[in-house]
């Protein structure tokens, strides 16, 4: 099967600083791919490039066979930004129904998505009165309602309690099982083990593109945090040699 996302020699500058240094990788369809790396490594910039809102210096980004951000992709790719991007002065239900109208999917799909993220009871509440975790889930619901083929999630589990985090990851895998391609960024290495594939990003360079199992074997450790450190060291000595 063709890759859902293909990135070739992607270079992005922000101001005078180079943020992404010629990345190339492919994301397989129907899997949860984790984009892992410390804060400031370029994760958000990369995800913005995938959804077509980032000015790109050079390189190519193809999603579902189309150039990233092109019109036909906008109903097929869902994007959830790092900060919850929903309207604080609307209720959860009003937010979901607004986004549903943009995708042309109707109010029923909106209400279903709100229930899917466990916000049924809070549907009538203003978003500004929700907790941070609930806001994040409201934001997620507004992407899920369109049943996108590719779902791009920027740090969706930040600030969630462990139980909710597990629930959300289960939901991601359930979506992948139905054929959705998920790209999930995180700076928490203990989430790496929950992904089908891993992209390790550091200072705008890709350190690894493999499954968690492959990474464990390559680095000789079961601890993915330690594995990340070993990959960083490996790269440094590689540069020196």
């Amino acid at each position, binding site marked *: 099967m063709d890759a859902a996302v293909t990135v070739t020699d992607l270079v992005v*500058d*922000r*101001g005078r600083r180079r943020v992404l240094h010629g990345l190339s990788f492919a994301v397989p369809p129907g899997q949860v791919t984790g984009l892992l790396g410390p804060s400031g490594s370029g994760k958000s910039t990369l995800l*913005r490039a995938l*959804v*077509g*809102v*980032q*000015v*790109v210096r050079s390189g190519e980004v193809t999603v579902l066979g189309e150039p990233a*951000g092109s*019109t*036909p992709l*906008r*109903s*097929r*790719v869902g*994007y*959830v*930004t*790092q*900060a*919850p*991007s*929903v*309207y*604080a*002065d*609307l209720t959860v239900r*009003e937010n979901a129904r*607004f*986004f549903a*109208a*943009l*995708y*042309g*999917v*109707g109010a029923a799909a909106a209400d279903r998505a709100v229930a*899917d993220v466990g916000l049924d009871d809070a549907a009538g509440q*203003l978003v500004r009165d929700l907790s941070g975790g609930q806001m994040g889930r409201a934001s997620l619901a*507004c992407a*899920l309602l369109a*049943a*996108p*083929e590719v779902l791009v999630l920027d740090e969706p589990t930040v600030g969630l309690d462990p139980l909710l985090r597990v629930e959300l990851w289960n939901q991601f895998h359930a*979506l992948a099982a*139905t*054929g*959705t391609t998920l790209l999930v960024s995180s700076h928490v290495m203990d989430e790496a083990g929950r992904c089908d594939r891993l992209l390790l990003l550091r200072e705008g360079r890709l350190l690894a593109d493999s499954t968690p199992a492959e990474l464990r074997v390559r680095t000789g450790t079961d601890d993915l945090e330690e594995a990340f450190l070993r990959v960083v060291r490996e790269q440094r000595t590689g540069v020196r040699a």
Partner: protein
Amino acid sequence: MTAIPTHARPHAAPGATTLAVTARVLRQLRHDPRTIVLLLVVPSLLLGLMDALWTGQPQVFDRVGLVMLAIFPFVVMFLVTSIAMLRERTSGTLERLLTTPLPRPALLLGYGAGFGLAAAVQAAVTTAVGFGLLGLETAGPLGWVVLIAMVDAVLGVALGLLCSAFARSEFQAVQFMPVVVLPQVFLCGLLVPREQMAGWLQAISDVLPLTYAVDALQEVGSSSAATGRMGLDLAVVAGGALLALVLAAATLRRRTS
């Protein structure tokens, strides 16, 4: 939730996305009752203040008060819209909207319609208070006063949308008010009649859209029936609003650095 094949994907009907934006803008207003009260009451209070100021000179109040009916909604809608759009930008919702099937012109038109509607209610209330309670008098039809005020408010919305593209913070957005709005108020013919202005000032006044809204209201003030000049003035203001919306759509970048 299964992935839907492309050919079977639902699409919003043309115009439906614009309506969705309009409905959302109005819903946001509804959740903010204090803003609604401010929108509806403040222009009337200011008009009352002017009435008190010119108690002995009702003819001055008739002249200035009438023109104020165009200036209030213009200024207020400019401010409200540029802040609303800036909030959209800083909260990340704009970035998200740009990844959805919502076309950029539909976003701007939706905003224009939503705040335009709010402005219509504001104009109706202010006109009713001005003519009903404060004894404002005019020769021409009141319907035209409301219509001019409304189109003028849409102009304010359109300029607010355009200017918010150049503002990176609330501080900057608020500064655009004196830059964009005040020169139009100074040069519209209210403070100094246009005929008495220096040639170069008149030339600037000629290309500022608020001038035509004020001219239309002055027509209503002096002539008992609708004139061709009112229509022409109104068309210029509407054209200015449309131009500002087109420019706003052109400056609203999907990709940012």
